[in-house]
């Protein structure tokens, strides 16, 4: 069921890894994987008001060979599942997956006794790194998810976490 585990490179430099990590974190190229309503929020995040370009992530590539992160935004139906698996395979390392929205996290509102076509969560077959809850999550939530992913890659956050006062 799960994918293979990540294979380390032949030569490993820790400082170089840190530098490459900063580079990768600041230029995460997402794949246009909007399946449903969360795609609209993803598009809004890429537009001018909630600019995703400030974080280096405005370049949504349609081809999986050129992207780092797959933002699974929307409901995953059983018919779409083989396509997602193929596209995940075709992404080169290093790659990450963000599950955006309730449908991608756990099936969302489509989990009921008679469910016949929705896969209940992207993590049923993909290794998800970041979960962004919401139905749909606001663009600020998606930006927070990208920042969390950056923290996961580099180990430090770009902006401090905002605590509710």
């Amino acid at each position: 069921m799960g994918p293979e585990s990540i294979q380390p490179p032949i030569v490993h430099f820790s400082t170089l890894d840190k530098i490459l990590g900063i580079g990768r974190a600041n230029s995460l190229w997402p794949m246009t994987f909007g399946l449903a309503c969360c795609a609209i929020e993803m598009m809004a995040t890429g537009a001018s008001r909630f600019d995703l370009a400030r974080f280096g992530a405005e370049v949504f590539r349609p081809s999986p060979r050129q992207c780092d992160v797959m933002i699974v935004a929307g409901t995953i139906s059983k018919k779409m599942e083989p396509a997602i698996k193929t596209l995940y395979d075709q992404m080169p390392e290093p790659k990450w997956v963000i599950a955006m929205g309730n449908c991608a996290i756990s099936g969302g509102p489509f989990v009921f006794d008679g469910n016949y076509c929705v896969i209940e969560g992207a993590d049923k077959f993909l290794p998800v790194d970041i979960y962004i809850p919401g139905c749909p999550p606001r663009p600020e939530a998606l930006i927070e998810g990208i920042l969390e992913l950056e923290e996961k890659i580099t180990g430090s956050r770009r902006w401090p976490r905002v605590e509710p006062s």
Partner: protein
Amino acid sequence: MILSNVKNSMAALEPIAITDTDYAAKGFHLDVQVAPDQVVAAVEVLNKEAFTLEAVTGVDLLTIDKAAKKKPAKKTEEEGAEPPPPPEKKPEPQMEVVYDFSHWDTLCRVVIRARIPRDNPEIPTISGVFPGANWHERETHDFFGIKFIGHPDLKPLLLPEDADYHPLLKDFKV
């Protein structure tokens, strides 16, 4: 003009019923109830008048006896009456295939309905007249199990390719 043309041409086919409906109430101008083998001829009438196909869908009438009893009561209450149920009052449940058509230039919307037995739902395909009906009929087959005779490729459109269940039937259980 188009409406009267359509009505005249349809009347020539002798369908089960033609009903003028109130557009403000129902959303369409004409409701034509046909037998399953008259569907292609009725659709060709509309094709000659340059109508476009909007949708093909199915209705699962599992409890037709109740529906048949309700309809005459409703007719006296409101205008834009439901079309009368087909004359052969079989107690077996039926399915109805609904075709929606509209005309782009003048506002005219027509609905064609055909009732088929639920145990063996088969109806001739209209994809020879309207090639766009190809996918609509695939979807209707997917969700109701209605077989369209003469359809080039009746494989599932929205469900997985190996699905053998029909979810929108009223007695569907996973």
